[in-house]
């Protein structure tokens, strides 16, 4: 399948050079870098706007869309993008009010996945080439299996989406942090929401080609959550989130290359999770060392006061 020669040479520069000489690694790095940057930037806004759940929803839709396309015999990416962008737009127009009941949402998504399984059965029983590997690719991605043309297309689309996101970044940030004031200042809050969710949908379609429909949510959430731990300044957190996502993908690719038994998507997800864990530890250590000298201070009432931290409803949410 994939030509892979493991080099355990003592010279790291030589090893990296050998690694980068493989075309499939080059494609993986080119596509992986842009997809990671896109996921990190979009993921930051997703977390900031409290739309984590929409991201999760779109990852389920990505699976069903891809398998529906396979069952219908068209290009997988067509189904991915059509399903995720349309559902993203729909969520944006319906969900002006904050998401419904968790029960309603959860049951609906379980059904959407069930529908995906139906398309999978349709695909495997009715096509002669059908086997389990297409399904695994959709679920967990195969960034080392990405072809030259697929890598080019993915990169171009990701670059375009990053461009759109940067153009709308300022009004989007404003309307995410304070929608009422933004609306009063003439920011088109109503149309920017659906546009953003359409971008999230396209991002889900992109990322599922790299790390799969089941894991892409982690690539959206983990770097963004880590960046939020490290800084409160949104304009610093945004590029930081993008950078952390790129670091996760690069180190995941290197790990996956060095240890062929490790699937690349597992390695990427592990690095992303580790980034969040380290960021959370650093923040906890910092706040503890800051809190330690000021014992008789009333500044931090939430943490140690009768063991009751601020409940989530007391935290002002960006969606108000």
């Amino acid at each position, binding site marked *: 399948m994939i030509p892979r020669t493991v080099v355990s040479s003592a010279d790291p520069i030589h090893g990296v050079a050998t690694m980068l000489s493989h075309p499939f690694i080059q494609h993986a790095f080119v596509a992986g870098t842009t997809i990671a940057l896109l996921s990190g930037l979009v993921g930051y806004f997703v977390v900031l706007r409290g739309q984590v759940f929409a991201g999760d929803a779109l990852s389920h839709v990505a699976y069903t869309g891809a398998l529906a396309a396979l069952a219908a015999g068209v290009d997988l990416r067509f189904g991915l993008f059509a399903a995720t962008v349309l559902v993203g737009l729909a969520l944006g127009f319906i969900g002006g009010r904050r998401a419904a009941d968790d029960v309603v949402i959860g049951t609906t998504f379980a059904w959407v996945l069930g529908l995906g399984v139906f398309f999978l059965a349709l695909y495997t029983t009715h096509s002669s080439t059908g086997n389990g590997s297409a399904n695994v690719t959709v679920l967990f991605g195969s960034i080392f299996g990405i072809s030259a043309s697929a890598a080019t297309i993915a990169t171009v689309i990701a670059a375009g989406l990053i461009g759109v996101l940067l153009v709308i970044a300022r009004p989007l940030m404003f309307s995410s942090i304070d929608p009422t004031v933004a609306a009063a200042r003439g920011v088109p809050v109503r149309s920017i929401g659906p546009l953003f969710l359409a971008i999230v949908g396209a991002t889900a379609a992109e990322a599922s080609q790299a790390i799969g429909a*089941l894991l892409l949510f*982690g690539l959206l959430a983990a770097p963004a959550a880590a960046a939020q731990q490290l800084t409160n300044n949104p304009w610093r957190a945004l590029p930081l989130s993008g950078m952390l996502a790129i670091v996760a993908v690069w180190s995941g690719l290197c790990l996956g290359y060095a240890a062929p038994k490790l699937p690349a998507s597992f390695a990427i*997800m592990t690095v992303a999770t580790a980034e969040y864990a380290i960021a959370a530890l650093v923040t906890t250590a910092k706040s503890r060392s800051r809190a330690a000298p000021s014992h008789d201070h009333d500044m931090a009432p939430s943490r140690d006061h009768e063991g009751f931290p601020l409940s989530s409803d007391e935290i002002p949410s960006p969606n108000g």
Partner: protein
Amino acid sequence: MNARFSWNIADDVRQMLAFHFMVNALRAGTIVAVVAGAIGYFMVLRRQSFAGHTLAVIGFPGAAGAIWLGINAGFGYFGFCIAGALVIAALSRNGRANTGLGGDAQESAVIGTVQAFALACGFLFVSLYKGFLSGLNSLLFGSIVGVTDTQLVTLLIAGLGCLVALAAFGRRLLFASVDPDVAQARGIPVRLVNGAFLVLLGIAAAGTSQVTGSLLVFALLVAPAATAVRLTARPAAGLVLSVVLALAVTWVGEGIAFFSPYPIGFWVTTLAFGSFLLAAGYRAAVDRAGRRGASRAERVTVSTAGSPA
């Protein structure tokens, strides 16, 4: 499947029961449906459905790892789910586990990260165990052919334990779920009850995963209970209804899956989702009728009050 469906239901059932795997699937389905219906009802009352989903997802690497190491998958499910439940109970503040939804975005991002990492670990174990990629589907989306006799015994013991525990502290659990503050004041150890319930939820999630697969637990754990809550407000009736619905969804789903080329995950989720939609529609219609009735009554009162007596 070689079996052909006919409209003679008795004959169909006889055909199904001729296969040992199908008998096992129905037995497992029955145990799981009773436990999931009962525990799920409390879970919906307590708004912890996302904890249930997270626990089920954590079960996936457990099962995949157990198969890789050559242990029965059931132990992997139960081991990881119960351990996950204990961790969530230890982390949950205030005696209430977070739902992962509607709370603050940072928290749901963390839960999403944990879920994605658990799925990634499961994928690692699956790919380390060569030749098992076809089994991936049954772990994630359920299968009716996978239940072994040992697994059935494990399920039975776990399920019975769950129900006995639920019967023992169900009343206090209900009290603590409906009004935690008053329950605390009346001396119910709310934090302990929460922890114990999470462990039961872990067991239920582990069992349900073995029928519906890790990703589709909502179909049995949440949908029947949510349907029951929309049909009746009385706890006892709701609990029974939830169990009955879970049983119906499981049996019918397994039956259709046996006679059709499409997998159980699709049928069970579709049936569960369909019944939930019907109940939600019924509830909306009743509410609207009630509101109209109320406004009419109000108008009558106003007009009689306005008329000179």
